[in-house]
């Protein structure tokens, strides 16, 4: 019978929690920057000139049909060969932003497409400027519609971010790797690390649901 040995794992809990905090920061930053990238790409796809639309389409298809692990290897090992040396955490952030941007663009595009033409016409009839229409008539309701998809994509992003441990970033999975090489209690270490990821995922979905109830109840408050 195998003797489970959790004592060294719990003794080094602070190491894991520091890693968890890096994971949270990394995914939150990737989400925030990725969201801006997504909105820009979605607008470009909806109303940009043809070559721009083509480029955005290419970006989305390439990212969505290749593994994140290969994307991060491509960036982390590739960029220094053209003289751009990034530390592991920055490379991880860049890769996560590039990855999230492709999925986010598709989600936001679906939101924009859900706005009917009549809404935009109503906005024009009310004398709103083009920018105002984009902001209040298109973007705001579109983001509200896709909020659930965006939040589940964020949780997926946070879980995917564990892959950045392979380029020696300092996230939760990497903290687990360090700890298992110190203690050799591999199964126990990864069990605790997995439990922390699960707690993060559950925690974030509870927070997102609370935000949704507070901010997006229908009919919309001003």
């Amino acid at each position: 019978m195998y003797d489970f040995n959790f004592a060294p794992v719990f003794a080094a809990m602070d190491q894991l929690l520091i890693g968890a905090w890096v994971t949270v920061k990394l995914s939150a930053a990737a989400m925030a920057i990725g969201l801006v990238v997504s909105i820009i790409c979605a607008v470009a796809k909806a109303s940009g000139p043809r070559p721009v639309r083509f480029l955005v389409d290419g970006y989305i298809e390439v990212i969505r049909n290749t593994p994140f692990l290969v994307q991060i290897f491509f960036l982390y090992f590739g960029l220094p060969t053209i003289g751009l040396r990034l530390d592991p955490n920055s490379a991880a952030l860049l890769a996560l932003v590039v990855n999230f941007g492709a999925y986010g663009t598709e989600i936001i595009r679906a939101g924009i497409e859900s706005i009917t033409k009549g809404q935009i016409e109503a906005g024009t009839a009310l004398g709103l400027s083009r920018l105002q229409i984009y902001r209040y008539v298109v973007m705001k309701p579109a983001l509200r519609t896709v909020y659930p998809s965006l939040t589940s994509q964020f949780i997926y992003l946070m879980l995917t971010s564990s892959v950045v441990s392979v380029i020696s970033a300092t996230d939760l999975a990497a903290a687990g790797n360090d700890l298992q090489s110190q203690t050799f209690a591999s199964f126990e270490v990864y069990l605790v690390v997995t439990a922390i990821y699960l707690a993060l995922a559950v925690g974030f979905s509870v927070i997102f649901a609370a935000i949704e109830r507070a901010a997006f109840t229908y009919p919309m408050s001003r």
Partner: protein
Amino acid sequence: MIRPFGFNDIILIAEAIRWTLALSAIAFAGGAVGGLLIALARTSDTRWLRTASMLFIRLFQGTPLLMQLFLVFFGMNIFGLPINPWLAASLALTLHASAFLGEIWRGCIEAVPLGQREAATALGLHYYDRMTSVILPQAARISVAPTVGFLVQLIKGTSLASIIGFTELTRTGQIVNNATFSPFQVFGTVAVFYFILCWPLSLTARRMEIRFSRATTR
């Protein structure tokens, strides 16, 4: 010794596609069986089956695939099995696919109108006949597009098996990169091969989805 990246390296990487495909096929076949069981448990009338299958799904959807691979890889030792990347990767990806396909197929089973089930029961069909001849055939039609979509996710997911030492497409890329140190060419090539595997599936899934939504929204 660093050698230049050449045609032979492309062949070497291309040959590794079969291991990616083999692992995807094993995980998909295993996941199809597991996923069907999970989906049936999720939609069953027995409460504890529904709860247990829901927890299984939440567990796999709420944790990283990489950690699932590690846990199976190191956990096999605990159950007295030899540590073997093939076995660990197959088992972990099968469990992973079971959870995701279970959740996808649960939705498809629930999308079959309730009247179908009631009519089947009224005709005196019991669970087995009702499922095999009434509900599942209709659910299967709905499930094709999202299942193909998940297959893309699964193929990409097999790349993580390289981290526990399974030599497939990505791992071969790493090996070639260590010898040639041409990361853009090597991982670009690897990415192109993944793209060739996944893109047609993505397009098919999207086309089927559009066709299906057109057929059902009239």
